[in-house]
């Protein structure tokens, strides 16, 4: 607690807001007409999505041959995108669940959008494993269901089956978690808006929430449960994704370091993506008071930390390979760094290890434009990390006779763009339809950092009610 008391010096919410202000600010962004910026973004996203959709439908109609993959490199851009998007997803759950458990109250401003990001990212991720199949229409065979084949179940030893379950669970739980968090705010929206589509939507989805404290009481424990469940889940998901490779025999894949390495990388990329989004959101949605410089600062530090972990992972796997005295292992990593695809490795290291080091400097952290640029670079770097792991390990494996190269076809690239199209389309719609900031939670922390001077609108104390005094001192005591 003592350690926690310090950050409260800086207000979590700027501009001395009252709960009423909060409600107004957030709901306003739902009622008003979308800004021109929003329309541009939405149109762009939508056209990318259309591009992606046409690419996918062509691929499914014609065959995986429309990708650049070959007999030796069976996976490339497709699975890279899958891992990339799953990784992005992790920050959301991290911020909403793990930071919740760690009582990091600054999360309140960003957790809603972070969770939304998670859900949309996982959607994007979920698409790729399906469309990369030779026979996508048979994808349901990955799930065990009673059948007339003997019956023939699925292979529970296969990481792909683990994947199917992990991604499915992850998506469901994230969705539920997100929705549970939304209920009180939806009620607020319901009570604020007069008619209109959003009002209808809110009254349908708010489940008749009144703010009854008996419900709040249960609600808190449920939220705690979900946070408690989501935390190991988020760790497990990327661990399992990493096993897709770690359980393989291919040098460069077959490494025990993968699970922590992948999880760190996922959080790294995820937080970077959150940064990108909130930096845009706070400008376009005029939320500077809620998403303050302090939030950015904290997240920058988180990025710095995870970047460090990733860097150690890179070093470690290189060291293990060279130290292993296993010719195939050694070769895999030297080929990764200095082989035909060395340039991808260079991009990966510079974007994920070198660039983030700038964040050591407060001046950099406080310059939002630089932070924005860095976050973009990190996203690129992390995409390449997955590309490097998948491609460079595959294209030159055991038998030199079957070494090949790889070059993506336009179809694949369209799919990559398409996934971003889907992601941003959904996110922009979310900004227009649902409260982007968790109002109830923010209201709970409005006073934080304002304890010094008595907040406006407080009734003047009356004598003889000492417990009220205590209560009136605000929540730190309560929280402590």
């Amino acid at each position, binding site marked *: 607690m003592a350690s926690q008391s310090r950050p409260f010096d800086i207000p979590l919410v700027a501009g001395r807001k009252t709960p009423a202000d909060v409600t107004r600010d957030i709901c306003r962004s739902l009622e008003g007409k979308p800004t021109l910026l929003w329309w541009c973004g939405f149109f762009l996203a939508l056209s990318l999505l259309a591009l992606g959709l046409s690419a996918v439908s062509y691929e499914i109609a014609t*065959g995986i041959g429309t990708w650049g993959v070959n007999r030796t490199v069976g996976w490339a851009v497709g699975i890279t995108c899958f891992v990339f998007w799953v990784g992005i997803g992790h920050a959301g759950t991290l911020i909403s669940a793990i930071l919740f458990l760690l009582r990091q109250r600054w999360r309140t401003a960003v957790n809603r959008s972070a969770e939304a990001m998670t859900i949309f990212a996982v959607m994007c991720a979920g698409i790729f494993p399906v469309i990369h199949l030779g026979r996508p229409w048979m994808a349901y065979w990955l799930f065990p269901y009673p059948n007339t084949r003997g019956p023939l179940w699925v292979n529970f030893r296969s990481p792909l089956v683990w994947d199917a379950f992990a991604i499915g669970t992850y998506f469901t739980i994230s969705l539920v978690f997100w929705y549970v968090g939304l209920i009180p705010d939806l009620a607020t929206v319901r009570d604020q808006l007069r008619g209109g589509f959003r009002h209808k939507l809110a009254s349908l989805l708010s489940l008749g929430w009144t703010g009854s404290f008996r419900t709040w009481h249960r609600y808190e424990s449920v939220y705690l449960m979900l946070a408690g469940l989501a935390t190991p889940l988020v760790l497990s998901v990327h661990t399992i994704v990493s096993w897709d490779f770690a359980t393989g025999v291919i040098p460069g894949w077959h490494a025990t370091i993968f699970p922590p390495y992948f999880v760190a990388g996922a959080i790294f990329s995820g937080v970077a993506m959150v940064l990108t989004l909130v930096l845009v959101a706070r400008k376009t949605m005029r939320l500077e008071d809620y998403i303050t410089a302090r939030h950015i600062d904290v997240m920058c530090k988180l990025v710095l930390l995870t970047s460090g972990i990733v860097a150690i992972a890179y070093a470690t796997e290189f060291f293990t390979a060279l130290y292993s005295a296993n010719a195939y292992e050694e070769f895999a990593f*030297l080929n990764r760094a200095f082989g035909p695809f060395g340039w991808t490795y260079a991009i990966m290291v510079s974007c994920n290890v070198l660039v983030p080091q700038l964040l050591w400097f407060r001046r950099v952290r406080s310059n939002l434009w630089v932070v924005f640029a860095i976050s973009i670079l990190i996203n690129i770097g992390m995409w390449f990390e997955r590309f490097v792991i998948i491609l460079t390990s595959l294209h030159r494996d055991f038998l030199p*006779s079957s070494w090949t190269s790889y070059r993506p076809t336009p179809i694949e690239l369209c799919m990559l763009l398409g996934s971003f199209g889907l992601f941003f389309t959904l996110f922009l719609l979310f900004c227009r339809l649902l409260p982007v900031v968790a109002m109830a939670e923010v209201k709970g922390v409005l006073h934080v950092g304002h304890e010094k001077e008595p907040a406006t609108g407080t009734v003047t104390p009356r004598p003889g009610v000492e417990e009220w005094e205590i209560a009136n001192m605000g929540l730190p005591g309560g929280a402590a």
Partner: protein
Amino acid sequence: MAQRKAQHYWRSWEEGPGASEFVQISRDEFAESLDRPTEQFSRRSFLKAAGFTATVTALAAGCSHAPVEKAIPYLIQPEEIVPGVSYFYATTCGGCSAACGVLAKNRDGRPIKLEGNPEHPLSRGGLCVVGQASLLNLYDSHRLKGPLREGQESTWAEADAHIRAQLETIRASRGAVRVLSGTVSSPTLRAQIQTFLASFRDARHIVYDALSSSAIADAHQATHGERRVPHFRFDKADVIVSFDADFLGTWISPVEFTRDYASGRRLDTLPPRMSHHTQVESRLSLTGAKADQRIRVSPAENAAWIESLAACLAKTAGAALPFALNGEVGPHNSIIEQLARRLWQARGRCLVVCGSQEPRAQILVNLINHLLGNYGTTLDWNAPSQQKAGNDCELEALSEELDRGRVAALFLLHVNPVYELPNGPAFRAALGRVPLVVNFADRWEETSSLSRFLCPDHNPLESWGDAEAVRGVYGLCQPAIRPLGNTRSVLESFAAWSGDTRSAYELVRAHWRENIFPHAGNAGEFDAFWDRAVETGFVSTAVQATNAKPFSFSALENLPKISTPAGLSMVLYPKVAMLDGRFAENPWLQELPDPISKVAWDNYACFSPAAAQRLGVQEGDVVRLETTTEGGATTSTELPAFLQPGQHDQVVAVALGYGRQGTERFANAGPKWLFARSGVGADGRVGKNAAPFVTLRDGYLQYVRGGIRVTSTGRRSALASTQGHHSLTMPKDLPLVGGQHRDIVRETTLPALLAGDFKAAPSPAKINGLWPTDHPYTGHRWAMAIDLTACTGCSGCVVACQAENNIPVVGKDEVLRHREMHWMRIDRYYAGEDEVDVVHQPMLCQQCDNAPCETVCPVIATVHSAEGLNQQIYNRCVGTRYCANNCPYKTRRFNWFNYMREDALQNLALNPDVTVRSRGIMEKCSFCVQRIEAARIEARRSDKLIADGQIQTACQQSCPAQAIVFGDLNDPSSRISKMVQGPRRFAVLEEFNFRPAVNYLAVVRNRDASGKSPSEDRSNG
């Protein structure tokens, strides 16, 4: 009777009685609702309509059934045929003039696979790529359907009438009648042609081979007084020296020679026997790749080497020569003396062969063999080979006649002179001056398109016939299918024109009765003899010993001098698949990667890396090759460059047989999609025709052309190579591990092996894994062993596998994208820089016990069988490609598209016992599980156990070197379990504990223990 039960289930709307009117009604619905003017047709009712449509479609889907199928039995079933059962008919391969014995596997009235006939005295069960692929020629839709007259469809009656009429006039006017053919191995046909020609005053039968060995025969004419190509017996030779003769690849009778060569190098016998093989050659041939000692010489040096060897041996033998031989070949005397010593020690047990077309070289080789006393031992003089009867002098004469317009009638039989002769254009022009040109070609190609009459011959699988490969060994051809078109056997055609109406069957039978049966020795009924011949597919008769004439030294007195090509010289060679281009339209042959270059779908200009560097040529650069004759005429062509280690620096090697008319069809071989690229060159054909560089000089077709100028065109063209990295040592450009070696192929020398201090694999250390062993293999335990010492890389197995397992052809573009589908591939690795050692390693699914592919498949589409097979179940596969990624040997193949066969006719070649894989699923070698299952069912039926060797995989069956052995490891007496005991056994990547079921036997080279071939310590000449 049936009408009593009206109610019955139905499979489709059309069939169902009640269905039709339902469809009717529902159609009316839409008619009514949609014909309404829109303003009256409100949204609500539209939604209803939509809803109804949905219901109807849902219903339709709900009760849609498989389409109705008809089963149409025979009306009168032939006694010997049971539907669904395969029968084998012994016949003779029509692929080339080597005339190997084959068994045609017939199913439901059509041949679906060709296999070597194990009982045939020459090929002994082996079959080459061309033989294997010749099945597809039968089902080629480009074959002529019937006779053509002036390019117009005609009838046999009409054609015969015209031809006979014209022949009458020619007979009257004593015009010259010529039959121009390739080597005719059929004695009946030879006789038939003679009888046909007999009725003319001026008639001759001229024979030439596009891949000529004319010089050999002529040399023997000179030295032994008889024009013969002796029968080479590599099995009897302990020392083999070959000067530019690719006898394992394409020379005279490769299958037979490979078999002999392998039996001369059997290491599993006691004591191990291994002949010593020296190859002196200018380009890297399949044979050179196998040699114990390989010496790179330029074509010019070649003759000099022979001469000095002859001189050296003459000295040793103390033979008095009536003339001086120049024994000097610069710095290499030591090697020559060593060669001579080795040969001399193996007098009578050695063999020197030469592929050169220089008469001087051949005569000297005869001298050498004579001095070594090889005639009668390793060169069978009494039963000479009939496989190369070509006579280039006569060819030269004919072309003069043609130029002078002296020929009245020309019959072209299985030759394509316009394409394959150097003076093709001249020939084309000359043909125009011949009043009667009759061609027996089965398709519309360079020459046949110029003929007045096209009388297409049957495919060898459609007709009766015979073949005499070696004197005294007669093969019989019997039809395996009714002729698909209105074609006619050449035999019948010639018979018809000489007024003989007998069928091919009668003609062959009659000829055998009169000429072969009498020599067959074991007298008795002819019918019995004939039936036996039809059953076994061949007969061997006694050959009367012609007393070999004394070697005439007089021949040596005025030896024709060598015309040494100057400067960079072009060597024209045949590829194992394409040969002289006779089957250029066969997709299996086009897609087969060349065993040395690993490039498919193209020919190219091979340079040695050093030469390429000197000329500033990169691989894939299109270079212009040109040369000028004495006459000043320039011949030129443009080809992509290919870097070929082990080739002489003064040589550019180009493959013959490409750029054939008809290969345009491969422009869209392979899938059609947005970014698909054409499979042919700019001129619309596969590769370029190099025949114009061949020369017909002083009566010999020469395949070496001097004075080649190389200029770069600045263009590039990618070569469809199936192998990216060519050595087992890691690329130098990587720090630390650069130059590191992977022991994927293990190798030793004969002395080391005999000394017993060689062990290919460390004795399998008991790897105690984490898991309990739940899978003991009781019952059978299938495994394979591949002897890398025997394997020559001829690739027969690759095509055999393709034919057996319905492996599709994917086309050049897909090969360029590394998507070839061959289940069996031949990995080829080089060791060394320009003096390279070559190893070939057949690589197929290793059927690992601890298969990495199985663990990762999410849907259990690949699991292990109780007999150790790594099963791939196509219909369960969803196509994650995870298994292929995780396969350490990369032997899994994915159907990236629906790889269709060219047309329905080609589908007749499909094996009905193997599923045809659709798009999006994984496939791989199955150890020919369909054969295993067949054997199991047969065994159960006859209440016997499966005998060792009863199951032969397609690759094993076809291998001429018998390098592949398949069998049951749980049977201690089986051949395989014995083979895996030896010291040479190793498995690839064994140390990872994948437990592969495919074992390899290490490469053994017949060298001194240091493993260095003497050629390595000499500077490159």
